């Protein structure tokens, strides 16, 4: 690893979203939107991404902060993960997101890294990250999905040439909380459901999110619907700090007595997008939250999984996490 200067770029620090969008639109392919910079700077230092225009969003105060709305809570995309974790509203009503944010990386990174950046971060496949000309980088091969490829961390579902997974801990939480994403672009604002924000390789192999060039994620809205529900979050990783998940799970359950009245269950790091486990939800909805229901749900969780050479372990891991999430 080199410790010299990263290649130079022009740095812009706009004070409002409109200026940021216009700068990014003008820069096109050479532009880069930087939030906390915890991933951006690594890309630049490694010379894998070499934008000429970097737009630092951290000075846009309207993108920072957490406020209650008539229907839930709105979190500015530039709010740091530490602030998301410790915010009283999030802790009390949407604790799932607080738990997920607390498990991201290290304290130093959570103090600078933002919720929007964590959700929108790029794939962590090391072949892709080392600058190889894989499908995701615009090339025509995959180095991970080969007999000797190191694919222990890669996907079980939804492979389409690329086998990378979503590395985000907060992404699974916001999908389970039925959040929607507010995006500002050259043609104004649009709002997409969290589930539609994440893009698999079959749709667009070079992007992880629905953000188009020139667009900026400005806020994450969480509806009041799931406020105060029974939450479960667990992340399994090789190391307890800094590391990305091998598998993580986030569930929101509305109970009526002992019965699961409604549930949203999302599993991360098993597919390129946070995997909503609709089949499991349908099986356990209306049943008692007990061992038997958990067994039934877990059995269906990994249905259709096609493991790679080194990641078979993710199947029982995922099933066990689903079991724990349903038992609560």
């Amino acid at each position: 690893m080199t410790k010299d200067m990263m290649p130079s770029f022009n740095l812009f620090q706009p004070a409002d979203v409109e200026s940021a969008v216009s700068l990014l639109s003008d820069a096109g392919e050479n532009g880069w939107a930087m939030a906390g910079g915890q991933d951006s700077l690594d890309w630049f230092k490694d010379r894998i991404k070499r934008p000429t225009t970097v737009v630092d969003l951290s000075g846009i105060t309207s993108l920072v902060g957490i406020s209650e709305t008539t229907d839930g809570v709105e979190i500015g995309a530039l709010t740091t993960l530490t602030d998301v974790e410790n915010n009283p509203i999030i802790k009390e009503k949407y604790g799932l997101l607080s738990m997920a944010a607390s498990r991201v990386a290290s304290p130093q990174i959570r103090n600078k890294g933002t919720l929007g950046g964590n959700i929108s971060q790029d794939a962590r496949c090391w072949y892709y990250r080392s600058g190889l000309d894989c499908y995701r980088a615009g090339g025509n091969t995959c180095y991970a999905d080969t007999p000797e490829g190191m694919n222990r961390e890669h996907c079980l579902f939804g492979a389409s040439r690329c086998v990378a997974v979503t590395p985000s801990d907060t992404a699974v939480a916001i999908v389970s909380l039925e959040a929607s994403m507010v995006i500002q672009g050259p043609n104004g604002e649009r709002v997409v459901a969290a589930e539609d924000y994440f893009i698999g390789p079959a749709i667009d192999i070079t992007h992880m999110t629905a953000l188009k060039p020139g667009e900026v994620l400005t806020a994450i809205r969480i509806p009041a619907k799931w406020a105060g529900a029974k939450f479960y979050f667990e992340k399994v990783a090789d190391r307890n700090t800094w590391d990305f998940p091998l598998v993580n799970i986030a569930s929101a359950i509305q109970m009526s007595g002992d019965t699961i009245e409604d549930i949203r269950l999302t599993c991360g790091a098993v597919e390129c997008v946070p995997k909503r486990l609709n089949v499991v939800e349908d099986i356990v909805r209306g049943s008692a939250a007990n061992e038997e229901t958990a067994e039934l749900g877990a059995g269906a969780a990994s249905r259709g999984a096609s493991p790679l050479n080194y990641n078979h372990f993710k199947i029982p891991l995922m099933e066990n996490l689903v079991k724990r999430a349903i038992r609560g």
Partner: protein
Amino acid sequence: MQKKFSSDRYDPLGSDRDALSRRHFIKGVIAAGTVAGAAGLMTSCSDGSDNSEGAPAAGSVERLVSINVNGNVRRVDVMPNETLAQTLRNKLSLTGTKLGCDRGSCGACTVMIDGVTQNSCSVLTHTVRDASVVTVEGVGGANGEIHPVQQAMIEELAPQCGYCTPGQVVSGVALLQRNPNPTREEVRQALAGNLCRCGAYNNYVNAIVKAAGSA
């Protein structure tokens, strides 16, 4: 030819100790290396560029900035692609902040920015113009007394090779500033972003717990 030195140890400089001591020679080499290294850092700014224009684009950041470090406002010429760790170490001579991985993984470069710990290798200096930065040089007293956290680390034999120590100190001080009476688990969480290759984690945790008790 009579030898001037009395010791029979091997002396690569040969003869004249008074004119050129080994110590002076080594110091000279280090100084020359620093200058050459610094020149490389500065020139790579223009050499490594993909911009054919060379000059910064209109609206891009001004290079001359003021940043508040350890309570002093310092004027410094900062390139757009310069990290805070580089500014502190190369421009402001605050070399207490160490660079370990330069990728935000190890925590050796931890500094406090507006009271919270951040990896200075992963922060562009231009993003902290309006913030207050505290490095390991700034945690002690005004007359050079060391911080209780540092004293406790000495007593608990926490530093082994010492490379991660400045980062551990800053993480520990930041913790005690926001939570003067942390539990052992809270201390462990606060130090979770600081790698120690010597494996003296328990000693560091012991030190912070001790400092919390004495502070």
